[in-house]
């Protein structure tokens, strides 16, 4: 593998108070955040990424990130990296403690104030990048994948529970995300808002019941999670341009 071109911009360890929320900010370079203590969330491209001690996140340049957390101690390493290949960005677990070891060596190096610090730091940074590449091939959760994994998890929750009354924002809160953030990425990934998606699942289920059973509309609205017959009929009509009864008569 060809040698990458790297340079370190900063390395700073920061202890935070309980319950902090940072502003959204754009970072100019790659940034690795290593969590030594505490728990928190990064919000990156409208997706919340939960982290805890022993985990680290690599953000690509120009990322808009906000951080929130509780009693965290994190190392912030900013660096530039130039290489035809992509650097893996995402959330990682430092199972073997290798990443922390290198960060600590770099921190020592910063305090030495002797000749050659820059060159040593550059080499340590390269070692860090190779180690991330090496370990990421096993335990990587890329930021984009984190996103789509989460969305498919939510979709399958809707697919399984459409028959129950679901309050989408309460459900999102229960899994640790704000409605506002998730709505955006949900729509980006699957083309519908969460509520629209859930409604589609309910309508499809109602269609199946209309065609395959003799259930009354009263029974169907209950089995498909609608609030009332009129809620059912109105939404059904909106999506298919027919009332449930017309649909059943035409196709039945």
């Amino acid at each position, binding site marked *: 593998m060809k040698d990458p071109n790297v340079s370190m911009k900063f390395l700073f*360890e920061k202890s935070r108070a309980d319950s902090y929320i940072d502003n959204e900010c754009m970072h100019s370079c790659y940034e690795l955040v290593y969590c030594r203590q505490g728990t928190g969330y990064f919000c990156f491209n409208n997706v919340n990424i939960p982290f805890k001690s022993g985990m680290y996140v690599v953000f690509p340049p120009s990322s808009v990130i906000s951080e929130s957390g509780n009693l965290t101690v994190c190392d912030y390493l900013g660096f530039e990296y130039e290489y035809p290949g992509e650097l893996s960005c995402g959330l990682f677990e430092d199972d073997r403690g290798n990443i922390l070891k290198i960060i600590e060596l770099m921190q020592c190096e910063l*305090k*030495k104030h002797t000749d050659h610090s820059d060159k040593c730091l550059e080499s340590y940074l390269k*070692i860090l990048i*190779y180690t991330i590449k090496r370990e990421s*091939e096993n335990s990587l959760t890329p930021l984009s994948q984190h996103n789509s994994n989460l969305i498919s998890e939510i979709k399958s929750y809707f697919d399984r529970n459409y028959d129950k009354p679901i309050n989408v924002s309460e459900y999102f809160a229960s899994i640790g995300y704000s409605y506002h953030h998730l709505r955006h990425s949900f729509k980006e990934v699957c083309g519908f808002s969460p509520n629209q998606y859930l409604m589609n699942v309910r309508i499809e289920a109602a269609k199946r019941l209309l065609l395959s059973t003799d259930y009354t509309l009263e029974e169907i609205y209950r089995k498909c999670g609608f609030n009332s017959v009129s809620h059912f009929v109105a939404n059904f009509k909106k999506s298919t341009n027919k009332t449930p009864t017309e649909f059943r008569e035409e196709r039945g």
Partner: protein
Amino acid sequence: MDDAVFTHIEFLKHRSYDNEKVVVPPHNHYFYEMTYVLDGCLYTDMNNKHYECEPNSIILVPPNVAHAHNSNDRYEVIYMGFYYNGLFGPLNQRVFKDDDEKTILRLLRQMLEEYDNTEKYYENICGELQKIFILNMLRLQDNNRPSNNDAVLKYAVSYMQDHYYDDIDMQELAKSLGYSYHHFRHIFKENFNMPPKQFLLNQRMQYAMRLLRTTNKNISEISRNCGFSSATRFISSFKALFNISPTQYRNSDTINLDICIFSDDTADADLRPTAQ
């Protein structure tokens, strides 16, 4: 110049000899040879000099220098043959001790581990460890000569440039660079003509001015985005600096304020406020 640095490990071995007399007759190599004594005692002859090398001794033999080793008793060593084109600085023929932190030994063990495990990228990682090894050998050779400029300050500067919106604790920042706050402030001022807190304030102001002119965000949002603890604080700092309020600045297209920002080649010129 760094691009041209060339290093290559020819061999790297960890050996221990039990109760046997070992005699390596005089010989030389085309590459550097380094022997690190872990245990026992190794006698080395190099350029008509005789050395008794105890644990933690490092014997560095440059290319084409005749040398011989022998030992009467058990001993344990790590030895490495390597090429190096000298571009970090010349490595001299020497016998010397590792430092208290055993930096060299740690690096050698790391390299041995990488070679043993041969996980992906181990050659790249060893190549970098080798460079750090040479740099640290040079440091020992020069008795850890202090760096002549305050090179690490640039890391504080780029941190403040990227994290101006954060609540930055200068004591912590100084500590991370191995300085007391007092000393940090002093050398920062010496290098950039302003204390670090002023530098940070200017970064924040610069960004705030841009937001004032280019967005509709309200004053409290802007002060939050720029790392001010409150809108009041932002307004009073702004007034103190420019003698006008942020709103006056926003509403006037003609007022052109200038703020002293340390700038190197990478500083964002487009951050400077311009009348629009």
